[in-house]
């Protein structure tokens, strides 16, 4: 199952209820976090996709399991502001010829719906507590959706003694290569 920060049960409800409930549920969610909407209304996929783009959220994807649709929506589409850029960057093209670890700091659900094969997932919010999973001497290429979260993550790693950290620009948004799904 894909990890989300909040779950909404809209099973058995007909249009327009799944959208109305989603609107109410997402209000309480922190910007950048992921809502899972469980629905049986077959129209809910098209509706929530359109709704998210019209209201300004990021529709991540839908998984169907035993007649239940699990939709994933990330609140807002703004990325955090970067005050002072990390500086040590690498382009997506260069990334393809490098060895080392690709560290994907997007939310788990964003990662699940498409990531570069072999990339390791640690959401930005968990990085501080999970840093010990990483090797300080390895080359680490930090990636997110647009290059902002990864910039903050790269700075955090560098501040903690990681020597070979790069921020990948611009991010999965621009990545045209192969992706792997994880569910």
């Amino acid at each position, binding site marked *: 199952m894909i990890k989300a920060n909040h779950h909404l049960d809209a099973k*058995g*409800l*007909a*249009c*327009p*209820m799944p*959208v*109305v409930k*989603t*609107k109410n549920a997402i209000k309480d969610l922190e910007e950048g976090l992921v809502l899972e909407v469980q629905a049986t209304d077959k129209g809910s996929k098209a*509706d929530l996709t359109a*709704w998210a783009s*019209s*209201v300004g959220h990021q529709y991540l994807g839908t998984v169907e399991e035993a007649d239940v649709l699990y939709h994933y929506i990330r609140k807002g589409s703004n990325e955090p502001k970067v005050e002072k850029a990390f500086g040590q960057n690498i382009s997506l093209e260069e990334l393809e010829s490098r060895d080392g670890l690709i560290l994907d700091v997007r939310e788990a659900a964003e990662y699940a719906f498409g990531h570069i094969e072999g990339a390791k997932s640690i959401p930005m919010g968990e990085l501080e507590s999970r840093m010990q999973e990483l090797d300080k001497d390895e080359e680490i290429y930090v990636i997110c959706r647009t290059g902002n979260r990864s910039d903050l993550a790269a700075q955090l790693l560098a501040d903690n003694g990681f020597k070979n950290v790069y921020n990948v620009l611009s991010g999965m948004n621009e990545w045209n290569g192969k992706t792997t799904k994880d569910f």
Partner: protein
Amino acid sequence: MSEKVAIIAANGGLFDAYKVFNIATAAAASEKEVQIFFTFEGLNLIHKQGMHQLEMPAGKEHFAEGFKKANTPTIPELVEMAQELGVKFIACQMTMDVMGLTKEDFVDGIEVGGAVTFIEFAKEAAPTLTF
């Protein structure tokens, strides 16, 4: 794109009610400013008693089962939800006078106005829908 949706509800059957309130709540949930102008039979849709017993078109009564199976919200539920989402209801003064109705005959929170009130809103709305 306009952030306003204007709806004219001029018919008073159950199907009409679903068309009006489904579009209205969906638009409001998408953060549009929504106003519905209720006129003639459309006033049934927000009438305190009338909205509980809206009729299906003649010969279509068998759809009652379909509504139940699809688990659609009831019209009074949709009315409440629409109001919670900030949809504004305007009842047509002229029609109310013709039909001998007063503001108290309708759900709370409505406004009463004439065509101009609505046109003023609708001139900036896209789309304007009529049911």
